[in-house]
């Protein structure tokens, strides 16, 4: 499950600035009467690479989706890049175009070619000329190593390739923050590596990343903080080394023993 490639990351230049990218305070969310997120407090600095782990149903996805308002939170505050997320549509639009998101099931648009997938949002949201958008898209497609597929449709690509396109698509909006929700869990083992490699190279460039994943190898290699969630709360957070070698909380220990023992 661990990938050797990720071990080679050179962490020296991955600087964390003091600037705050995301600030969540006392955020609460309910689904009906079910309390999914409870008093979440989290500050993410620019350039941080945070891995969110936790058992299924603990609210990881929900938390991440609250950050770009795919879900609405009911109490507390979320400030992204200095803009508070409320019901103000303008703020939501602003934040969404600053924050990229990659889903478990890629969610590429099947009726558009790879290139069109990547240029859609820049053209319609950022109002970038098509030619320019395409150049940017090709640049990022090269970065994720599939420029030659630009004119194919998503259905013609393998899962790993599709996920890399999804990453490229997000990057085309030049986001300052990237959210990943289990980007590799729908992939076959061979394909996981190619996607993780892409994420690693992103991390190397200093992108602020918040990543829900079960790839502990990736967490150890790239993250500068691991957050452990359970029952809608942040139970523990620490540097990866500490987190894995010396978990404090009972639940963390239990979780790690299951994940790593397996």
């Amino acid at each position, binding site marked *: 499950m661990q990938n050797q490639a990720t071990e080679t990351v050179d962490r020296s230049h991955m600087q964390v600035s003091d600037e705050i990218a995301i600030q969540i305070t006392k955020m609460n969310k309910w689904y009906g009467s079910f309390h999914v997120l409870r008093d979440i407090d989290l500050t993410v600095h620019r350039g941080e690479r945070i891995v969110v782990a936790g058992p299924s149903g603990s609210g990881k996805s929900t938390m991440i989706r609250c950050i770009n308002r795919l879900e609405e939170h009911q109490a507390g505050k979320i400030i992204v890049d200095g803009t508070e997320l409320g019901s103000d549509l303008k703020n939501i639009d602003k934040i969404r*175009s600053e924050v990229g998101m990659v889903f478990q099931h890629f969610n590429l648009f099947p*009726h558009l070619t790879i290139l069109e997938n990547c240029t859609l949002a820049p053209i319609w*949201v950022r109002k*970038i000329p098509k*030619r*320019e958008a395409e150049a940017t898209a090709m640049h990022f497609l090269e970065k994720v190593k599939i420029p030659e597929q630009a004119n194919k449709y998503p259905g013609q690509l393998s899962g790993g390739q599709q996920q890399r396109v999804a990453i490229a698509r997000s990057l085309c909006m030049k986001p300052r923050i990237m959210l990943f929700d289990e980007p590799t869990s729908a992939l076959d083992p061979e394909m996981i590596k190619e996607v993780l490699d892409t994420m690693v190279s992103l991390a190397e460039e200093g992108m602020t990343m918040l990543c829900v994943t079960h790839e502990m190898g990736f967490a150890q290699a790239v993250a500068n903080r691991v957050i452990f969630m359970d029952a809608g709360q942040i139970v523990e957070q620490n540097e990866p080394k500490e987190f894995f070698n010396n978990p404090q909380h009972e639940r963390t220990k239990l979780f790690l023993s299951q994940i790593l023992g397996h």
Partner: protein
Amino acid sequence: MTTMTDPPGQGFRLSQLIYDTRYRSLTIQVVAMILLMLLVSWLVANTVTNLHALGKDFDFGFLTQPSGYDINQRLIAYDSQSTHGRAAVVGILNTLLVAVLGCALATVLGVVAGVLRLSNNWLVSRLMAVYVEGFRNVPLLLWIVLIFALMSESTPAPSAFRGDTPSASMLLDGVAVTNRGIYIPAIHFGAPFFDNGLYNWLIVLIAFAASVFAVKRLSRWAAVKQEATGDRPTTWYLTLGILVLPVAILFALMGAFLDLPSLQGFNFQGGIHLRGSLIALWLALSLYTGAFIAEIVRGGILAVSKGQSEAAFALGLRPGTTMKLVVLPQALRVIIPPLISQFLNLTKNSSLAIAVGYMDARSTLGGITINQTGRELEGMLLLGLFYLVLSLVISGAMNVYNTSVKLKER
């Protein structure tokens, strides 16, 4: 290919006709062919004998004889002295008219109801569910009859517009909604270019088509501009101008004026009369088919997974843009084939016009004409042929669309 599968020179045995895969299919087809021919010739022979026994012949001459009956709803000139053939054409045009109108309205109703049924407004979505289930589960014939009756009972009679204190009044002084139908203003020309009104309208139509073409060019230009600079220039006022001005100028040149309907004698005169029977049939067909289309639309939208719109939102696209660029193009692929088969159904169902006395092909050619002339065989044959050709044209269009979509997918 060098060698034969079977060694040659074995000779042909009769049993090969059944047991040899090479001949077997031929045998079956020949047998089927013979049986088919027998059946057809049997039917034809019976028909000939029966016709002879009844002293009838097989002759389409009746189409050229005067029909003797009047048709209220007609798109071409017709009176009771016209031929049965012309009556049939009037009926066919009426069928096409209600089919086209019905398909358009049914699509609108279906799309609205389908989308509203997915609305998060509980009340609205329930209301739409009631509409859909109610119309789908009761025979169309009942709906046609009920809507016809409902319309005539809930709208005022022309007499209600009469008198010093009329109980009903015209909308905007030009539109009268009565239980005989709706009267709307007509446009006439004071200084027409041609004596034949049709040509004048043809000119207007050509001008309008040219405008539409120009608008298309304009939006192409806007798209190119957007590709180059990223910003789409605002063109709506230009669009409006191009669409309206040429036609307006033509109208002015030809001295167009409105012919308002007004109450004279028993009825409104002047203007255009949309008859109650047409409206009732149109509404009933549209509401009924719309209920089916609503389900198709709902299914199509649901078929586009939630992930698609979430991904679009996450990229910063607005809900409207998401609908236009992401959800609809995908939903349409699912929606259009069953939609077209609903259009087909609607067209066929328009033959129920008989229930409200709308004179469609079935009521003229397949109804009064047959009844007056006793030419059942010829009349029904023509009628069946007409519907068949219509269906084939529609389903042909559907096939063309399907293949074009399939080609685009991969």
